[in-house]
């Protein structure tokens, strides 16, 4: 750690800082939503940027689309172990999960569960997802203010997760809580202490151990717990590894889609011309879904550790260095995306964004997420002229989960 006092990034215009003093990981930038101007400067002047000191130790920031793709696609030189966020894992509380493993172990574990969200299975789920979406939307108050995050985004993603795990439906909000706890910390206000966080995650483990036992005693089913309990590569996992993989699947299916469900409403409210396009042409919805996922980028980054010295865009990343791929920045890179700061629902090549990652760790649930969002918007458009956002949404105070804790809206019928 350096002796010099830490500069608070949020107090500065990025132009007024020496490039080497920039630290885009600082929480204040994310709480005050000032990070984008910092990423703009890094992309232009230092696309592979070394931050020598931060709350998380030294790290490289990779901020251009093509550079991020190069690293994401290269698991041989850039390891996902032991963790995939900028935060170092707790030494006394390791959470092994397949997203944070390299091939071949990663591949074996992933293969055990990925069938649950493969397109053939999704086709079977579409009717259920649509019925649930209709029920949630039909239960909303029209013409009076409510929180879209709680009533729609959390409710729909949590119901989906409960189905994938075949989790007791009445207890489903426990999944929401465990997802928040897994990615939260004291400073985010979600838990009081690291001890309290671990205690809640053990409750999660205990609950799922019960389900595991019940499913292991029966023939293999199609839910994720049963798949893990019967899979050759997963049936002998330690409890800690079971917990790690549960958290991966819970967070992966929850925080991400939830925030795209909210972000889409917010983006359309800020771009009334796009909202008008949507009203005139509901056929644009599948393309809009990709644009929402790009615009929101629900996970801001992923991290890797270099396995060897590696030249990237004129810089030498040393073996052992921590490398942060800022998807949020790459998705705003005008070198790869036309008019990247604009939200354009009928944009060309809308699917070519970084939000799902690339390479062997590419988001397993990406097709499910797209389907959930497509159905949501199809059903919203049948019912409402506008989902009007009141005030501004409240942001998650995190440099990893890029989303919203609350967004007040009023529904206007056709």
């Amino acid at each position, binding site marked *: 750690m350096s002796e010099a006092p830490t500069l608070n990034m949020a107090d500065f215009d990025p132009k007024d800082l020496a490039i080497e003093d920039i630290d885009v990981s600082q929480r204040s930038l994310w709480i005050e939503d000032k990070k984008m101007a910092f990423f703009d400067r890094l992309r232009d002047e230092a696309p592979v940027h070394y931050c020598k000191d931060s709350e998380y130790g030294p790290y490289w920031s990779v901020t251009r689309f093509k550079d991020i*793709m190069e690293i994401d696609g290269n698991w041989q030189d850039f390891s996902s172990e032991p963790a995939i966020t900028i935060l170092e894992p707790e030494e006394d509380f390791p959470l092994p999960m397949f997203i944070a493993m390299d091939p071949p172990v990663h*591949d074996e574990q992933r*293969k055990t569960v990925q069938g649950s969200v*493969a397109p053939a299975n*999704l086709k079977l789920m579409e009717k259920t997802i649509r019925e649930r979406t209709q029920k949630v939307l039909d239960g909303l108050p029209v013409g009076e203010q409510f929180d879209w995050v709680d009533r729609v985004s959390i409710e729909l993603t949590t119901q989906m997760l409960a189905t994938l795990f075949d989790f007791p439906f009445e207890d489903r909000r426990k999944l929401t809580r465990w997802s928040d706890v897994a990615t939260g910390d004291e400073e985010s206000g979600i838990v009081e202490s690291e001890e309290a966080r671990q205690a809640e995650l053990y409750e999660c483990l205990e609950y799922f151990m019960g389900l595991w036992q019940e499913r292991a005693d029966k023939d293999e089913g199609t839910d994720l717990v049963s798949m893990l309990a019967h899979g050759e590569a997963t049936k002998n996992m330690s409890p800690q590894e079971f917990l790690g993989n549960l958290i991966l699947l819970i967070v992966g299916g929850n925080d991400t889609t939830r925030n795209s469900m909210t972000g889409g409403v917010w983006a359309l409210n800020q771009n009334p011309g796009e909202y008008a396009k949507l009203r005139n042409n509901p056929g644009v919805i599948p393309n809009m879904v990709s644009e929402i996922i790009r615009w929101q980028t629900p996970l801001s980054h992923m991290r890797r550790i270099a396995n060897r010295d590696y030249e990237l865009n004129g810089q030498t990343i040393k073996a052992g260095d921590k490398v942060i791929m800022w998807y949020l920045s790459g998705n705003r890179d005008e070198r790869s995306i036309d008019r990247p700061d604009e939200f354009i629902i009928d944009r060309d090549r809308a*699917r070519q964004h970084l939000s799902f990652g690339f*390479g062997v760790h*590419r988001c*397993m649930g990406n*097709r499910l997420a797209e389907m959930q969002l497509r159905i949501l918007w199809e059903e919203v458009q049948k019912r409402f002229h506008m989902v009007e956002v009141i005030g501004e949404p409240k942001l998650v105070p995190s440099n990893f989960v890029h989303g919203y804790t609350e967004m007040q809206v009023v529904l206007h019928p056709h």
Partner: protein
Amino acid sequence: MPKITFIEHDGTQHIVDAEVGKSVMQAAMDNLVPGIDADCGGECSCATCHVMVNSDWVAKAGGPNEAEDSMLDLNPERASNSRLSCQMTVSDDLDGLIVDLPEFQF
């Protein structure tokens, strides 16, 4: 120019002229063949340009390279004749190539 036939899951055929040296994926994109997403733009990093090579063409088209193999492996619907079309280069030898498209890209 070599001709390539893409057959959709429902049997619809698309016969396109493909430029030598470009990828089979690019030939599909250039000719607006539906059923190929190519989310990564041809970097062998997303597996959404999955095709199944017609049995008569498997020998000529060859098998997947190492990086392609690891991406294909993530698809539960992978078949023995599966390839990522961004990793197949159009050549005169492949004039007449026939590939089937999967019902879904994943």
